């Protein structure tokens, strides 16, 4: 059983309050997701984030195949982190931790996603060809959109997207 991990860091010139307000609002996911993925929230995003929140949406990530995703917000610590976990969707397992912390001039935003793809050995074969590049593309797009929205923060550490 192979569990993959994606880690991404980005530095933004915004206050922790502004970052939390934007990043923890599911309605903003559409803004930072590539248009070709046709991200649509079906339900569950009409309140502020809370543990146990179920969000349903559709997304078309690969080969024009529309997928329904259901995620649950499982953990929240105000202005520090929240976790979403897939309850139903294209992955066998999806556990996404969103961390933010205050640094001089803004915030450090860190995402850690542990995920597993279905189809056993076949899934592992298609991972480097389809899933990994597409996830990287989604995070690169998000990085660009966040720079357009808020600007960028120069730090000694780099903005990075790595797969483990």
């Amino acid at each position, binding site marked *: 059983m192979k569990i993959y991990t994606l880690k991404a860091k980005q530095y933004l010139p915004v206050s922790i309050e502004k970052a939390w307000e934007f990043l923890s609002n599911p309605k903003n996911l559409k803004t930072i997701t590539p248009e070709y993925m046709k991200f649509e929230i079906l339900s569950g995003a009409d309140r502020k984030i809370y543990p146990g929140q179920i969000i349903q949406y559709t997304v078309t990530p690969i080969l024009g195949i529309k997928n329904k995703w259901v995620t649950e917000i499982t953990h929240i610590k105000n202005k520090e982190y929240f976790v979403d976990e897939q309850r139903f969707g294209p992955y066998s397992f999806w556990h996404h931790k969103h961390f933010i912390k205050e640094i001089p*001039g803004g915030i450090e935003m860190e995402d850690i996603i542990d995920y597993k793809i279905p189809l056993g050995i076949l899934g592992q074969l298609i991972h480097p060809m389809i899933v990994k590049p597409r996830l990287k593309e989604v995070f690169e797009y998000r990085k660009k959109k966040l720079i357009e929205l808020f*600007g960028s923060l120069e730090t000694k550490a780099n903005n990075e997207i790595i797969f483990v």
Partner: protein
Amino acid sequence: MEHFSNDFFQVDLYDQYAILTIHENVDFSLNRASILRDKLKKHYESKGFIMISHRKFEHKTSPEVYKQGVLDNMKGLAIVSSKTKERDKAILEQPLFGKSFAFFSTLEEAKAWAKSFF
């Protein structure tokens, strides 16, 4: 606070940040920017500061200003404007600058950001 103005711009130099307003329709070339650069150098010496560009008026900034005219101790640039057009222009300028770069619709937000560096 030290204040300087000429036919092209005015600048207010505070401890942690400078507020720059370029006058209407000015083409802010490298030569014009060098006047500002000298003022900044003299005021801040090697001390870090943030530049707040208060875009009250439309003007052009030459790409050379970003490429050659930026001081090492200028830690970041805040663009202040409530106009979408100015924001779009700033997004295009951002890669030329290569340091911390942020957009704000009010001067107060930009000042708070500048202070958060120190």
